[in-house]
């Protein structure tokens, strides 16, 4: 059974077929989310939210499009949500830390960035560049396919990829020197 047949079954209320889809794509999805977020727990949360969104919006799916691209585009949006949440948490943490230090007079709180990205070089890339590079290098996506995931023009996707490749190359060269 291909993806479209499975999805049609899901649309008819067969949740077991959705389980097949989840099992087919969970590895790729978690890996992609992990490569964007760098945290397993956040990656799993983003994946769960993405699959739930896929299930509840199945009737909006255009069967002419590739399912994996659609899933990855939803997953990418959920990853951005996770990053936004994290940024809000960091702002809150910094504020409460400053307030605590002011009242106590000593720096007592410390927070280290847990589970950094798989490779620290990836931190230098923006999320768009990171996902472009990941899809290109790991999944073998072309500029057009990346643009479907990022929901931007193919030119923009190619530019993200080009910038990411250039940045990583120079960083790798610096690392070796």
């Amino acid at each position: 059974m291909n993806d479209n047949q499975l999805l049609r079954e899901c649309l008819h209320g067969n949740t077991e077929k959705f389980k097949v889809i989840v099992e087919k794509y969970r590895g790729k999805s978690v890996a992609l989310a992990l490569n964007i977020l760098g945290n397993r727990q956040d990656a799993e949360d983003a994946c769960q939210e993405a699959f739930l969104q896929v299930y509840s919006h199945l009737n909006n799916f255009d069967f002419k499009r590739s399912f994996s691209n659609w899933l990855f585009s939803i997953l990418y949006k959920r990853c951005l949500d996770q990053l936004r949440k994290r940024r809000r948490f960091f702002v809150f943490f910094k504020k409460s830390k400053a307030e605590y230090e002011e009242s106590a007079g000593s720096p007592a709180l410390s927070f280290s960035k847990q589970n950094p990205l798989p490779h620290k070089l990836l931190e230098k890339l923006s999320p768009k560049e990171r996902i472009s590079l990941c899809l290109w290098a790991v999944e073998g996506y072309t500029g057009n396919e990346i643009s479907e995931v990022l929901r931007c023009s193919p030119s923009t996707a190619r530019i993200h990829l080009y910038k990411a490749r250039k940045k990583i190359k120079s960083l790798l060269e610096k690392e070796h020197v």
Partner: protein
Amino acid sequence: MFKCKFIDFLFSVLPIKRWQDFLVRRHLQNCTVCQRRLVNSEDARRLFVPENRIEDLEGIWPAIKLRQAKEKEEKLPAQRRRRWAFATAFLLVIVVSAVWLYLAIGPGKERPEQSSIEQFQINSIEIDNEPAQAFVYHPRDSKTYFVWVEKKT
């Protein structure tokens, strides 16, 4: 080399992504010098966590199913609440309209024009012992009546 530097400069200066992409496709993809300044897919792949290194994926489906059930449970009372709110609002509109209609034109309530007409009546009018023609003018929202009497010609 100079050409590459110039193209690089153009790339950083061009404001539109389509133009930048044109440069990338026309020059950078065919230029070996510029190609060497881009990471290849194999080196890039090494930076990422591959799918086969992801373990313990068994918990994802049960977690999704649990969240689905939870969402369904949360959705149901919300839907019910929305339905009740809609029905109450509809009923309220009907009740208010009915009360307003009752107060406006219900039994026992007469229209002011009707009552004044009933109160003000001219049965016959004469001028010099001859029947005359009467015109009654009642300005709106006023208790004054103007009566104009003319001899019939």
